[in-house]
């Protein structure tokens, strides 16, 4: 696994932030100047890749591609995968990404002003496409297996892991780099801000994202890069890979309903499908990493779906978005990483800012403080615009 996010530029930093309940949310003053309702955002700096990649490779990477690259370097290193392995094996890539706003805007600005498309430069097209992350990383790391991007709104990263899991399970691939990436810049989420979807509780940024709390008023946009190496058990054992956890279930569904307002039935079905696929009993799931983005309706309906599915049994439920904000296209992948870090280090990070439940969250077991606990399996939800739902179940690996 590898991570580059507002709560850590590597796994150790992210683990410490989760353990200590440290928020990565802050203020971007530029957004206020641009007329945003909310200037809240995850705060992370762009990595300096000059000593890591040549000019051509750097130029073709957009912002979120840089984050994904950093996360992937860490993931391959931790997985014990080097250039020689990549040379000899057909390693694939499935990454969640659903926009690349900044390069598109920059290119159009130049074309409008200069009336000469050549002045956009050579790298723009490779930065602008939704498949920018997979096209760049597959070239940089010389990947020769499956290679495409999954655009499933805020469930993109989760679906990427789910599809990777299925391809390995069906025997089509032995090893796939899965993940999610999300740009963080003043252009990326302007139209989203325009829907009044973001929290405007700017006076204390660390308190703005309050999933499941009665006073929640919207999400905080964020982003970065999250990479996981999915590998068949046989391949991992054969090369002596350090196995961190096992993806055991993938459930999905589509609401077939409103374009932005989530419902209860779709998420419920996604959870049920994942549980069935994993063949796991409800009581074995000790922790749920909720999608809960801190929006009034989304959190309410997810809480209802979880309550219905778990039917009286109450595993711990938290949303790490209380610390990270909503990492959108990346969130489904990063939250599996955060949850695995917690599972392998025997704690559940606090659901920050959870002070007063509403009628649905009062039925869940949501800790506002860190819980020190050993657990062997977790469930991770990711839902997106258009009613796309993805649920993953991950177990601790036991040799």
């Amino acid at each position, binding site marked *: 696994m590898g991570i580059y996010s507002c709560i850590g530029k590597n796994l150790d930093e992210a683990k410490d932030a989760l353990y200590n309940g440290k928020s990565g949310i802050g203020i971007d003053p530029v957004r206020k100047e641009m007329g945003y309702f909310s200037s809240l955002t995850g705060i992370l700096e762009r990595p300096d890749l000059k000593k890591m990649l*040549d*000019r*051509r490779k750097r*130029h073709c990477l957009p912002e979120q591609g840089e984050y994904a690259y950093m996360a992937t370097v860490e993931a391959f290193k931790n997985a014990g995968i080097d250039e020689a392995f990549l040379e000899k094996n057909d390693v694939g890539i499935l990454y969640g990404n659903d926009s690349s706003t900044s390069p598109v805007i920059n290119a159009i600005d130049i074309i409008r002003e*200069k009336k*000469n498309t*050549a*002045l*956009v*430069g*050579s*790298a723009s097209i490779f930065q602008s496409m939704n498949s920018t992350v997979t096209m760049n990383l597959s070239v940089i790391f010389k990947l020769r297996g499956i290679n495409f991007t999954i655009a499933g709104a805020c469930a993109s990263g989760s679906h990427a892991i789910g599809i990777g899991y299925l391809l390995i399970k069906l025997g089509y691939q032995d090893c796939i780099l899965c993940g999610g990436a999300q740009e963080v810049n003043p252009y990326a989420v302007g139209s989203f801000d325009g829907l009044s979807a973001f929290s405007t509780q700017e006076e204390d940024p660390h308190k703005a994202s309050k999933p499941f709390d009665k006073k929640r008023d919207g999400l905080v946009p964020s982003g970065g890069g999250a990479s996981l190496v999915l590998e068949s058990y046989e391949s991992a054992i054969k090369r002596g890979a350090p196995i961190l956890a096992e993806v055991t279930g993938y459930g999905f569904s589509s609401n077939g309903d409103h374009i932005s307002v989530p419902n209860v039935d779709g998420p419920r079905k996604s959870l049920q499908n994942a549980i069935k696929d994993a063949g796991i009993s409800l009581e074995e799931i000790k922790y749920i990493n909720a999608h809960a983005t801190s929006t009034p309706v989304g959190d309410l309906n997810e809480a209802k779906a979880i309550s219905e599915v778990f039917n009286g049994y109450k595993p711990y439920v938290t949303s790490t978005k209380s610390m990270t904000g909503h990492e959108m296209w990346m969130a489904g992948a990063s939250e599996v990483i955060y949850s695995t870090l917690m599972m392998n280090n025997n704690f559940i990070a606090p659901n920050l800012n959870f002070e007063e439940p509403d009628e649905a969250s009062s039925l869940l077991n949501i800790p506002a403080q860190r819980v020190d606990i050993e657990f062997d399996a977790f469930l991770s939800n990711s839902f997106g615009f258009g009613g796309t739902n993805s649920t993953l179940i991950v177990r601790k690996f036991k040799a």
Partner: protein
Amino acid sequence: MTNEEIIEKIRTTLAEEFEVDIELIQPEALLMQTLELDSLDLVDMVVLVEQNFGFNITGQDFTEIKTFQDFYDLVIVRMKEKEAK
């Protein structure tokens, strides 16, 4: 701008953009090979010239350019033409 100043600006700009040692940029050295340019990089040359010297070149112009001296000559001529307008 004198011709010498134009040439020095070209050398500095190319060295910075294409990340090569400026000492490799000599009049008789081959431009494409020295800068390790491919077809995509030629598009960036178009941008570089427009941003730094204020005129447009096309891919066609590069068919005539072999050495850095050829490139200096092209830029100097176009700069003089621009000034004359």
